[in-house]
């Protein structure tokens, strides 16, 4: 997802940024180098906090004045109080979690609302690679071989809707992306390379 919106953000992050209310408190889990946080603070006056595993990325966040804690989302979300944030954001991280179901529960505990973005494993390219190639897919959205990928829990849009239902979460909005631009909801589980969901607990 290299094509950037006017804010300079990845399309999934731009969709999230557009939905976040001005002045809200946001926790960005797996915030990377803080691209979303920086936009939310500069353009929406948000109080943004980050959690990121990679020390180098945390260092670059701190150097640009962002409040980011180095830590592991699988274990460290437990240290945040209930409903400490208006939004908890989990972008491109659900599929690397040890237990995505538990992490989703934690998101909805610490945030009044949650945004989750993930690569859709049911995209037609992925299906085709498995169906016709008989191999684990290596695609634009999932560019790393099965043995090296950090994505240990592949998920489809249908799976995610089901998980949200099991967790008793309400889907407040959903956005889908292919070829680095937004697409409609129709046939999204075939057509979308990436999805963003907004949930409330």
């Amino acid at each position, binding site marked *: 997802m290299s094509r950037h919106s006017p804010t300079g953000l990845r399309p999934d992050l731009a969709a999230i940024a557009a939905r976040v209310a001005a002045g809200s408190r946001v926790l960005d889990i797996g915030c990377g180098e803080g691209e979303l946080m920086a936009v939310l603070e500069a353009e929406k006056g948000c*109080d943004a*906090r980050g959690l990121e595993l990679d*020390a*180098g990325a*945390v*260092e*670059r*966040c*701190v*150097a*640009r*004045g*962002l*409040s*980011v*804690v*180095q*830590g592991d989302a699988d274990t*460290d979300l437990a*240290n*945040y*109080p209930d409903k*400490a944030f208006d939004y908890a954001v989990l972008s491109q991280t659900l599929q690397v979690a040890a237990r995505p179901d538990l992490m989703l529960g934690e998101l909805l505990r610490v945030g009044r609302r949650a945004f989750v973005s993930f690569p859709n494993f049911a995209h037609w390219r992925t299906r085709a690679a498995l169906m016709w190639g008989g191999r684990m897919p290596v695609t634009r959205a999932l560019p790393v071989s099965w043995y090296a990928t950090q994505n240990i829990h592949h998920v489809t849009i249908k799976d995610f809707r089901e998980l949200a239902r099991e967790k008793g979460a309400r889907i407040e909005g959903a956005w889908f992306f292919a070829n680095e631009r937004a697409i409609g909801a129709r046939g999204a589980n075939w057509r979308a390379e990436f999805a963003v969901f907004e949930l409330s607990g």
Partner: protein
Amino acid sequence: MPSKPPVFQLPESLPLDCGQALESARIAYETYGALNADKSNAVLICHALTGDQYVASTHPVTGKPGWWTRMVGPGKPIDTDRFHVICANVIGSCMGSTGPASPIPGGAADGAPYAMRFPVITIRDMVRGLVALLDGLGIETLHCVVGGSMGGMQALSLAANWPGRVARILVIASTARHSAQNIAFHEVGRQAIMADPAWAQGNYYAGDTSPNNGLAVARMAAHITYLSEEGLTAKFGRRLQDRPDGSAGAKSFGFDADFQVESYLRYQGSGFTRRFDANSYLYITRAMDYFDLAEEHGGRLADAFAGSEARFCIVSFDTDWLYPTAESRHVVHALNAAGAKVSFVELSAPYGHDSFLLEHDQLDRVVRGFVE
């Protein structure tokens, strides 16, 4: 001769946690860079156990450069072209601030020093003294307070007990409480000093001898805790020290400093006694052992930071076993629970606790980014 350092005379007595008060206390300090018109660019640097106010200027006793010249100076991560940097010697120490070697005010006509009559102080008492200094300098709010090790304890104490006085708190290789292991190592050092006959119950100031042997052993034991096993191995391994006559090192089948690591520790120990007072070492280690920020706030560390609007940055090093990363994370979790703005990063460095004083590009970037 370097000019005499500025010394602040406290206008009022300084109340202490033990219930006593220090009368006519003095705090020696150094400043670097200009204070701006609205006094909003002050950065306070808090020194560690055996540190002093000479953070970026030559030490008057040893003649060595300041202890953090690589971090503080024009264009450095804590940029004295932009910030007014203040570093003060803590009370209880021995570089010009009131401590056990200072004369008791209104006391004996011969100016007898406090020695062990000096009251036991705490980290919060040290910070109370620093706040009095800030009052005297007319600085209401610090742009930032920075501290490594015991300096980090002071920074946390300032944030917790005087929350309006500081906007940014940078804590490096530190902790919110002394662990049993921390206390244990300090007790070894104190016992080494007090077992030295020259200590004389602390009354050695008038005589010809000081408990230098005990103080050197204390420093040697402590110095081991500042380094990592990996760092010691890389620096010394099992290498032997050259003989005093210049011949190659060999086992002496005696108790000379055969190994380089022994020679190094002896050198560190004896060098330390030339610049540090043994009684100060007792008092300051005691203050560190008493430090438990949660205990001061009803047992819950998060309550120490409740309502704080300041920004925090906590940094640890992966090979620091004196104040390991887990202690920093403990502080971070409390800050999260309090809803405070906090950043945390564990940096990788081979040299243990002392890494914060050594070359580290990532640390430089974190400090520069956070302070600005």
